[in-house]
């Protein structure tokens, strides 16, 4: 298994940019991390978003989930990528020493 299974970095950057634009995490004193998992269908529609690893902070988890939902629809999957869907595990990281 290698990164060349999904070598479309511009596509992943687009996902990161769109989600980042919509993410409004609650202010937290400590570093907080959660992972949300979801799938993107061929035409860019969102499927099955869910919290995969909770931060232990429900508000933070919900803000992460909401960022995914608010960011969709996503771009259509790259033509050269032939599978019906792409599964993404997206980590949300809030560090305390910056913005």
């Amino acid at each position, binding site marked *: 298994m290698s990164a060349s299974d999904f*070598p479309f*970095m511009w596509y992943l950057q687009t996902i990161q940019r769109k989600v980042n634009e919509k993410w409004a995490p609650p202010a937290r004193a400590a570093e907080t991390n959660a992972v949300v998992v979801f799938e993107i269908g061929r035409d860019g529609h969102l499927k099955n978003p869910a919290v995969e690893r909770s931060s232990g902070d429900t508000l933070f988890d919900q803000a992460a989930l909401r960022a995914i939902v608010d960011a969709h629809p996503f771009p259509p999957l790259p033509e050269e990528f032939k599978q019906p869907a792409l599964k993404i595990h997206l980590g949300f990281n809030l560090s305390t020493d*910056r913005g």
Partner: protein
Amino acid sequence: MVRHRLVALSLLLVGCLGAALILSGSPVSHAQGPSEVWLNVQRGGATKLNIAVPVFTVASGGDGTTGKTLADVTAKDLSFTGLFSVVAGTSPLPLNDPEGAKKLLAEFATAGAHAALAGIYTQRGDRADGEMRLYDLTSPEQRVIARKTFEMPVAQSRRLAHKIADEVVLQFTGELGSADTRIAFVRGRPGSKEIYAVDYDGAGPTSLTSNGSINLSPVWNPDARSLAFTSYMKGYPDLYRIFVDRRPVQTLASFVGINSSPGWSPDGRSLALTLSKDGNAEIYVLNVATGAIRRLTRHIGIDSEPTWSPTGRQIAFVSDRQGEPHIYVMDDEGTNVRQITRGGFQTQPRWSPKGDLIAFTTRRGGVHSIWIVAADGSNQRRLDTGSGDAESASWSPDSRHLAFQMNRTGAWQVYTMHADGSDQRQVAGPDATSPSWSPRLP
């Protein structure tokens, strides 16, 4: 070997998005199944994507300026979205010289471009084709992100650039842009006002009415082929429909009293409008095909300026039932009326095509400004449009922009801006008011 590649990809990502990402040396994308990837986001400002837009290749037809004009229009569209920083102005990509093209793309990448857009214009008789090839420059493979061809009558070949720009926006955001659109507006002085339309960027003005009367408040039908408007052409304020293809004008409503402030239902079959036929200004819904009307509001106050939510289930409107005019929302049956704005003198509600926001005008201290409120009444805020009055907002179909009228220069002009109030661009004037931004053109 594989490990080296992963680290290299990580670094490229850092270079592209800077502070927006946290990577900490670990692979960004390590597939465990055939179609799974791991990514991270960290709180930070959105960054623009750098895109190179060289002069379009002209395969046949056009003149000496066609390739440059199309590239310039596309570049301006992309830059207007606020999502891209455009690097323009180089010679066309040599498409029949793959090595030369690869070298030029590599130069764009070195200059900081994350993507490049090549356009090819081909004219056949009175038709023109615009082909786009969008390249990813964030990895050395220079993969083609998308390749698509649009066709237009030669007379409308400028629209090829708009369609290409909208497709680029789709590829990077999942939603089409708003470049292939028109803005209708009213132009004239007291006593004579006609309706005109321009491309969203101010090009290609055409006149839609020329009856020498007073014509007001044009509103595009969702099909982008016709508009409703109020006209005094027969002496009374009646409601009409004009067609872009110059079919005869259709009378929509000519009841006794006021027939005004039309708002189309999302399916384009009904109009919410203000009528005073029963004595007081109330909101009704008119079925355009049958002429049947149903009354929605019953209140001693003045109810006017209805605007539908994109689901068709709710209507926002202005009412002075509390004294000063405020924005209210009701269900499309006229029930469940609730006030959603606070303070001030508020008029001209316009529901965003995405459905989450309502733009409106507030008068405070004699000055008009454009405000935005969430459809549930939360997060009411003023857009900073600078000095002068700003009124009469109209959303772009992607809800990222607004057209509006402003008198900062001393005369009313129509402008566009981002939905946060920034990047104002004048598109029509002087004496231009009441813009209506069309849906995407058919």
